[in-house]
C-alpha cells in the first residue's frame, strides 16, 4: 500500500519534470503563430528544424564543442581525482589549507577574472585556440571536482588503506588498485555534472574566440536567441538539437552511475 503511494508520487514528479521539456519538444514541430494561439498542441512538421539547421552552422559548432568538452572534462577529472585522494584519505601537513585553497575557487564570480585571463592567454598565444578553452574549463572544474571527490574518498571505510598497507602497497598502488574502482560512481557523477555546464557555456568562447570556425555550440545558440527572439518554433528546434547530445550522454552515463553504484554495494 505505502509502496504504491510512493510509486505514484515518484511518477507524478516525473510528469512535472518532463512536462516542460515535452512542451519544448512538441513546440519545436509547430509553427510559431500556432504556438501563440494555443501554447500546447500536436506537432505539425519539420519546418523549424530545416530553418534552424540551415541558419546556424551547427555542424562545425558541434565538433568544436565536443572536442572542447571531452578534453576539458577528462583533464579536469584526472587531475582532480589525483588531488582528492590525499585530501580525503591521507594525513599530511597543510591538508586543510590545500582543501580550502581548492574550494575557494567555487566562491568567486568566475567572470571577474575574464580580463586577466584574456591577457594571460594572449601572452601564451592561446586566444582563439581550442586548447586555451580546454585548459580554462578544465581548471574551472577543479574546485567542484576536488570537493565532491574528496568527500567521497573520505567516506570510504578506513580498513581499506590499512589492508592495503598490510599488503605492502605504496600510495600509488593503493590509489590505483584499491581507491579508483571504488570512487567510480562519484567519478561518473562528477563527469556528468561538469560536462553539462561546459557544454552549455557561451561566455568564454564569446570573449576568447575570434575565428568563426572555432566557435562552440552555445555561441551559435546566442546568435540564435538574438535572431529568433520571437520565432519560438525555430528557437525550440535549435534548443532541442543542442540538448539531444546531452540527453544521449546522460542516459548512457546514468547506466554507468548505476553500474558503479551496484558494484559499490556488492563489493
Amino acid at each position: 500500500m505505502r509502496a504504491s503511494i510512493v510509486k505514484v508520487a515518484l511518477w507524478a514528479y516525473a510528469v512535472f519534470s518532463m512536462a516542460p521539456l515535452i512542451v519544448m519538444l512538441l513546440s519545436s514541430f509547430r509553427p510559431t503563430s500556432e504556438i501563440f494561439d494555443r501554447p500546447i498542441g500536436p506537432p505539425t512538421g519539420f519546418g523549424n528544424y530545416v530553418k534552424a539547421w540551415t541558419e546556424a552552422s551547427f555542424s562545425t559548432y558541434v565538433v568544436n564543442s565536443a572536442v572542447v568538452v571531452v578534453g576539458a572534462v577528462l583533464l579536469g577529472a584526472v587531475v582532480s581525482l589525483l588531488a582528492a585522494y590525499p585530501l580525503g584519505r591521507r594525513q599530511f601537513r597543510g591538508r586543510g589549507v590545500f582543501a580550502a585553497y581548492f574550494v575557494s575557487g567555487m566562491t568567486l564570480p568566475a567572470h571577474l577574472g575574464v580580463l586577466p585571463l584574456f591577457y594571460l592567454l594572449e601572452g601564451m598565444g592561446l586566444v582563439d585556440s581550442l586548447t586555451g578553452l580546454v585548459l580554462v574549463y578544465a581548471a574551472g572544474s577543479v574546485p567542484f571536482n576536488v570537493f565532491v571527490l574528496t568527500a567521497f574518498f573520505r567516506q570510504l571505510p578506513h580498513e581499506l588503506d590499512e589492508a592495503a598497507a598490510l599488503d605492502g602497497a605504496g600510495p600509488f598502488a593503493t590509489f590505483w588498485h584499491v581507491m579508483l574502482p571504488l570512487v567510480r560512481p562519484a567519478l561518473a557523477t562528477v563527469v556528468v555534472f561538469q560536462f553539462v555546464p561546459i557544454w552549455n557555456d557561451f561566455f568564454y568562447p564569446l570573449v576568447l574566440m575570434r575565428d568563426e570556425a572555432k566557435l562552440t555550440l552555445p555561441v551559435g545558440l546566442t546568435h540564435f536567441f538574438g535572431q529568433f527572439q520571437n520565432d519560438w518554433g525555430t528557437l525550440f528546434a535549435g534548443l532541442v538539437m543542442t540538448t539531444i547530445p546531452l540527453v544521449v550522454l546522460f542516459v548512457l552515463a546514468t547506466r554507468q552511475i548505476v553500474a558503479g553504484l551496484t558494484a559499490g554495494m556488492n563489493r
Partner: protein
Amino acid sequence: MRLAAAAVALAMAVTACAPSTTTRADQGKITLSVWGWGPEANYDKMFAEYEKANPGVDVDARSFTTATEYDTILSTGLAGDNGPDLAWLRAGANLQPLVEAGRLLPLDTKDVPGLAAYDEKVLRYAKGDKDGKVYGVPFAVQTLQVIYNKKIFADNGITPPKTYDEMISSAQKLKAKGIIPFAFGGKDDWMLPIVASIFGTAHWGGDDFIAAVKAKQKKFADPRFVEGIDQLNKLKPYFPDNAAGVSYTDAQILFSSGKAAMFPGGLWELNFFGENAKDIELGVFTPPVPEGQGLMPGFTDGSYGVNVKTRHKAEALKFAAWLASKDYGQLYTDTLRIFSAVPGVTPKDPLLGEVSTTFDRHGATYFMNEFAYGNPSSAAVFSKALQEMLLGRITAKQAAEQLDKSVSTWL
C-alpha cells in the same frame, strides 16, 4: 598515472587537430573586420557595395547578437592585439569607458569629411565627455512613438487621435471589443522609461525641462514631470492585464498577432513587424496631451569607431569616411528601415518619411539617455522605480524622487 598521461595527451592531440588560424590577406587584399550587434546579413549586403567600389578591400562584418555581452567582448577585444579594425560603439555614457582607456582613434573632418555636416545634437553622442573629440560615425537616429494596426483602427472606426480625450475614448472602445489597446509590457524594465517618454515628454515640456534639470534649476519631482510619468498609471487600464509581468517580446507578439491595436515603442520595431507580421499595415502617431500636440522623443543610436591599434589605419579611415557619406546613409535607411544618422538622407519608405516630418516639427530628446550616468546608473534606478510604480507599490512622485536622488550622486 598512465590514465592521466593518456588523457592529457588525448586532450592535446584533439585540440591540435583543430584547424589552425585561417590565413587572412590573399594577394594584397586587405580585410577590414567590423564588429557589431545587428543582424549580420544586412551588413554583408551593405558592405558589399563598398567592396564593389574598392576592390582591394574585403569588409568582414561580425555580429554578436547578445547585446550585453557585446560590451565585454568589445572592451577585451580592443584591449588585446587581435581586435577588430572598426566596431559599433554605444552612444553617450556607455561609450566613455572605451574613450578614457584610449582604445579608439579620434576622428576629424580631415579624415572623415562627412562628419562636418552632422547636427551637433546627433554628434554629441559619439564624443568623449571630457575631451570633446569625436570617436565614432553615428549610424542611426531612433524615434519613439506609437505604432498602430491600420486594419484594427479602420474596423473599429478609429483614426489616429488628435486630442488626448480622443485617444482615451478610442482605447475604451477597443477594450470594450476585447482588443488590447496598447501592447506594452513592463517586465523588461528598459522599456518603461521609453514608454513613459512616449506618453509623457510633452507633459514635462521636452528639452527645456531636461536642460533646466541639468542646470539644477529644476528637479524631476517637479509636478510636470510627475504628471508625465503618471501617464503610465492613467493608461494602465488599456495595457494588457498584469502589465508588469508582460515581457517585451510578449508585447511584440500581442501586436504582431493582432491581439493588440497599438504598440508604443521605437522605430526599430517597424523592421521587426515588417518581417514578422507581414500582413499588418502599420501606421504611426505621436500621442497627444491634454494641452494639445505631443512630442516625439528621439535619440542617437550607436556609432562606428576605429580601433586605435588597427593595422590598416588608412583603409579603416577611408571606410569610416564612406560610413559618414550620403551613399551609406541612403543604403542604411533603405536596407534597415531605420533613420540613418547621416544628414540629408530622405527615406524612400513613406511611413519613415511621415515620421521624419513629425520629428522635424515636434521632435525632442529622449530624456533617459541624458541620465545614464552613475553606478548604478540613474537610468537603471529609474527603470526599476517605474516598474514599482506600475505595480502600484510607489507613486509617480516617489519614482521621480528616486531619480532625483540617483542623479544627485553624479550631476
